[in-house]
């Protein structure tokens, strides 16, 4: 996730100070990985240096920094460009699970056990996400569904590999 673009996107709603931005980011996108203050301020200073945000006065009050930031025209253009550029699809070609299966077969260990243990671990995580999803709001549902669909893809691969283990064993030990 590009934190810079996310903060810029949040600033499009109006000028805000760093703490406020962090809170808003964590609430929407950072449930599992909240931002550190350091990240927020270093990102903001980079955006400032690149002319994508500008200082918009200082708010009176306690706390570490009450400087307010506003998005610039260049910042808006940058957000637009980011939103309209598709994310590069992950090729998923570096696969630890595949390596484990092959090494189990090469060493005469049980590849079925590797696959079974992984299936159980995946399903445990999927159960936790499902629980969170059914107890949550629409944002939770969409965030959890994204994870669930990806884990499901892994599981389908595990099943397919389990069905092809005999064939794979012949090929890797040839």
């Amino acid at each position, binding site marked *: 996730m590009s934190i810079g673009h996310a903060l810029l996107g949040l600033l499009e709603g109006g000028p805000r100070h760093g703490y406020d931005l962090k809170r808003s980011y964590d609430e929407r996108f950072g449930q599992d990985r909240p931002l550190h203050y350091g990240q927020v301020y270093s990102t903001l200073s980079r955006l400032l240096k690149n002319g994508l945000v500008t200082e918009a006065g200082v708010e009176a009050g306690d706390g570490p920094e009450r400087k307010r930031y506003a998005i610039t025209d260049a910042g808006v253009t940058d957000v637009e460009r980011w939103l309209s550029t598709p994310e590069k699809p992950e090729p998923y070609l570096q696969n630890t699970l595949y390596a484990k299966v092959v090494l189990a077969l090469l060493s005469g260990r049980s590849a079925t056990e590797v696959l*079974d243990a992984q*299936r*159980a671990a*995946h*399903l445990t995580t*999927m*159960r936790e*996400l*499902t629980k969170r999803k*059914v107890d949550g709001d629409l944002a939770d549902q969409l965030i959890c569904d994204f994870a*669930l*669909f990806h*884990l*499901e893809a892994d*599981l*389908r691969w595990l*099943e397919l590999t*389990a*069905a092809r283990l005999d064939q794979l064993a012949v090929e890797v030990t040839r």
Partner: protein
Amino acid sequence: MSLLKAEGLFKSFGKTHALDGADISIRAGEVVAVMGPSGSGKSTLLHCIAGILPPDKGTVHYSGQDLTAMNDSKRSELRRTEFGFVFQFGQLVPELTCLENVALPLRLSGMKRKDAERASRDWLARLEVDGVADQRPGETSGGQGQRVAVARALVTRPKVIFADEPTGALDSLNGERVMHLLTTAARETGAAVVLVTHEPRVAAYSDREVVVRDGRSRDVEFAR
């Protein structure tokens, strides 16, 4: 302590060994997903432990009674009173309204129409399909029909619900809604659910999984 326990099940159809020494154990109130690739024997396992299909070899014990030793009428009475069933499709009687479909098992057990329909209406409401009570199954959507089928499976307050690919004919949103309503209702009434599925996201509504491959099952709870 298991409510339903099957041990060493074998079942062949001609030369095909559908079950080749399968074991499974279900405790009261738990939701167990039976997973495995197509043709692995998971549906045959469900049919054997539900008393629909007699195994060639092996035993099935439900609440201390041996299903494999019962005669047909005793087994079908057990199925009607203790078990509920949800299949992929084709289980509702097309000539009856949805309400009459749900009320059917209660009527077969001798309950008066008024009482049976009152209880059925409650279940339709719990499954959020009370709006289709007076429609025939053919007039409802796939998701609604499946919720009616779940209501019918639950109306007799069964101890075990057997669900064979209950979301197989539904899109993912409707499928998940059915799973949520089915597992929530089962947990509230204390019914166990044996859920046959090949879909991991459906299996994620369970408490644990039993994997079937080549007619053999891997049930970690069975050994305990």
